[in-house]
């Protein structure tokens, strides 16, 4: 299935994926604004803005979005990440206009009622505190802060708590006005609709919006890492965890395809979806090297596909009674093996077949299709998704070794350990 792409005069990119037999239509709007666009002092502003955009404005009163989508039985949500903010509704096909109306109001007419903004402070701090309850979240936050010194990937998407306690309504509203404009957005539709009719409706809802001058592109570049970085979190808990991050290039880089194949060989492949999978891969080097050897109870590898140079992470839960240092050494040994020798032919066949098959599983239904194409468009280009799937099939074992050697060295590595039940002296 091909994606129809069009750009309105005001700069809004529109992607259409017609699925004539689908029982639903999914409408997604992605904005090219994430926590990377924040500055110290307003960390978490992007995510807070996302929350405020469920609270009405323009033709929508507070609670209307939930009520409208709720009574239609639709799916809806919003997500904020380092590079983007995304909203969606999936509804019955005859409700396409409803979803477009909601997203059009959200783009330019949000209310940012001062009282509502203040009430949301408690909700967001509660969300952050809920995340802090999880050792894995704490470790992930620590790893980003350790691996990035200059780049905004240093701070968490949800923001530092002190910023969340301080940020004021007017800062959020100014941030919204600056970034929420058609020329900084992508609108994706997938499901049962006629493309010409859908474009007519899209123009009707979004065509009159004027573009906004966008801030200059982010120029911060993380300086080269000159040696391994390490950090330890000591906190009460029940299990130790190890997280390792290697600095790797941005999503649009030519080495992303071999790095994805490397990830598949190293830690298995479970598709591009950022929301996890119920399926555990047991046919990969890390599983064999850590779980089969009874060092860890689970392990995974994940290439963070981001707009700027990013991390390939390895995460392991340490089996009780095992020294976390041993788990770290075993994980690094598996990485070193890939740097020394290309993967075996059978591993390559498996990795490529998994990536090819998950290319279909990932696109199961209109919601999933919009998720991936919107995400790729706001971070790089929607065409890159298909390109990466094609390119990955041409990756050789030598390519995998080359990128392992280039990026997965000691000097590019950050290691964080969560030591449960041991407090700092």
């Amino acid at each position: 299935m091909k994606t129809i792409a069009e750009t309105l005069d005001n700069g809004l990119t529109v992607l259409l994926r017609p699925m004539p037999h689908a029982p639903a239509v999914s409408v997604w709007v992605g904005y090219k604004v994430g926590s990377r666009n924040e500055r110290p002092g307003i960390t978490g502003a992007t995510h807070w803005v996302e929350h405020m955009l469920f609270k009405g404005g323009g033709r929508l009163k507070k609670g209307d979005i939930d009520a409208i989508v709720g009574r239609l039985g639709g799916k809806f949500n919003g997500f904020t990440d380092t590079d983007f903010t995304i909203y969606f509704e999936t509804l019955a096909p005859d409700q396409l206009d409803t979803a477009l109306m909601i997203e059009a109001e959200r783009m330019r007419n949000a209310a940012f009622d001062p009282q509502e903004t203040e009430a949301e402070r408690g909700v967001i701090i509660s969300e952050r505190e809920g995340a802090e309850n999880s050792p894995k979240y704490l470790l992930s936050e620590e790893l980003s802060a350790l691996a990035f010194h200059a780049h905004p990937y240093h701070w968490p998407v949800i923001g530092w708590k002190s910023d969340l306690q301080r940020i004021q309504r007017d800062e959020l509203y100014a941030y919204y006005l600056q970034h929420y404009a058609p020329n900084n957005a992508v609108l994706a539709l997938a499901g049962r609709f006629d493309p010409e009719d859908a474009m007519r409706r899209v123009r009707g809802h979004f065509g009159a919006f004027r573009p906004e001058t966008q801030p200059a592109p982010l120029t911060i570049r993380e300086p080269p890492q000159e040696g391994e970085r390490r950090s330890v979190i000591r906190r009460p808990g029940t299990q130790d965890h190890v997280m390792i991050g290697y600095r790797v290039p941005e999503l649009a880089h030519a080495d992303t395809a071999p790095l994805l194949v490397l990830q598949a060989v190293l830690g298995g492949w479970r598709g591009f979806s950022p929301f996890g999978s119920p399926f555990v891969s047991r046919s990969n080097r890390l599983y064999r090297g850590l779980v089969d050897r009874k060092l860890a109870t689970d392990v995974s590898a994940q290439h963070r596909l981001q707009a700027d140079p990013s991390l390939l992470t390895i995460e392991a839960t340490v089996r009780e009674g095992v020294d976390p240092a041993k788990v770290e050494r075993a994980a690094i040994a598996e990485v070193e093996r890939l740097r020394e020798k290309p993967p075996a032919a059978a591993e390559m066949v498996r990795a490529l077949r998994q990536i090819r098959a998950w290319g279909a599983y990932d696109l199961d239904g209109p919601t999933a299709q919009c998720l991936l194409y919107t995400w790729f468009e706001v971070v790089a280009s929607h065409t890159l998704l298909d390109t990466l799937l094609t390119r990955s099939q041409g990756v050789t074992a030598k390519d995998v070794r080359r990128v392992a050697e280039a990026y997965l060295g000691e000097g590019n590595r950050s290691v964080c350990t969560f030591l449960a039940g041991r407090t700092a002296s």
Partner: protein
Amino acid sequence: MSGPVRLALGNRCVLLLHEDHSSPMIAFRGSVRAGAAFGRPGVAEFASRLLLRGTRRRTASQLADAIEDAGAAVSCANGMESATIEGRCTRESLRPIMRILVESLSEPAFPPAELEKVRGEILGDIREQQDDTRRAAARRLFEIVYPATHPFHRDPKGDAGTAAGTQRPVVRAFHEAFYGAAGMIFGFSGDLDVDTLQSTVAGAFETLEAGQEPAPVPLPKATRRGSAVVPMPHKSQADFVAGRIAVSRTHPDYYAVNLANILLGRIGLYGRMGAKVRDELGLAYYSFSTLDARRAAGHWTVSAGVNPKNLAKAVSAIRAEMERLKREPFSDAEIRDGKTHLVGALQVALERNAEYASALHDIEYFGLGADFLARYPRIVRSLDADDVRRKAVEYFDPDECSWVASGPVKGMKLAF
């Protein structure tokens, strides 16, 4: 597009299919009547985790390689009433995957080395749950609301004792007793036609021995109301959960209670509960209710994740919303919206093969009838508004609920 296909095999395994050739994938979801409610505590968890970890013909590694070499994915998870099996494959990989699945179901080897790995995984999961405010609170609640003699009282994973003590012969015996084809259900959706279902899938599943379906799980008796606090002083956020035994999926009250639950704590941003606790008071990131209706029984819960200093306020607000059902019952407009929500939600859910396969499975599992998808809108629309209001008051009575708070809550004075 034609309606779902149902194939009942001679060994009492049932296969269901929804054809959708618009994408080159097949999703399947199945269940075996081998949940934690049966057998000795904790054993079902071992059996389900070990199902895909080696057969008499292949080691665990060979099995994993064979599945992933085919570009497929298969998982098996233990539930309270059943073990569920989920998978993704393509038309090309269907045959080898069905062979692997049937081989795993009929002749698992439970290799000692894998059993030890699984033991470590289960112990790890139990420890993780003990350190998770939300999961720990829910676990404690079910221990309170279900009588100690009822299977739903216990953790499906077992406890540290069962995880440490379960041995291979017990797992093998559990498999022999409960992993028969009788009562087994598999729903498929995607790039699969009826002929292939009959030849490839039914051909493989027919080789399974029927065995005997276990006796139904007995209905639980209501327990007295109780409460507990699970202190975790090192956590940032507290969790609160209240709940009670409610209805099974086939109980005559199910549809009315389900609609009432949607309105109280699900629709939109978590219904009345979310509107009050999250949206109006700004006390919690989440505050919602859940109806978990199973074959034998079910329970209803209301949950919230809250800053400890706001916990008492949030608990009062939750109780107030439940009490409000008596003096300010759901309006006609709320009930109308809830009905359209339920009808629309089913249609939208079926956008994915994975969800369609799951729906087909559930329809068969709960005996809802082959025409359920067509009948469902009528069932929902025919619900009597006053009956829904009455059921809300009856089932969501705070005085009938037990409750648990977890997190940095030690020494706190809480009442519900």
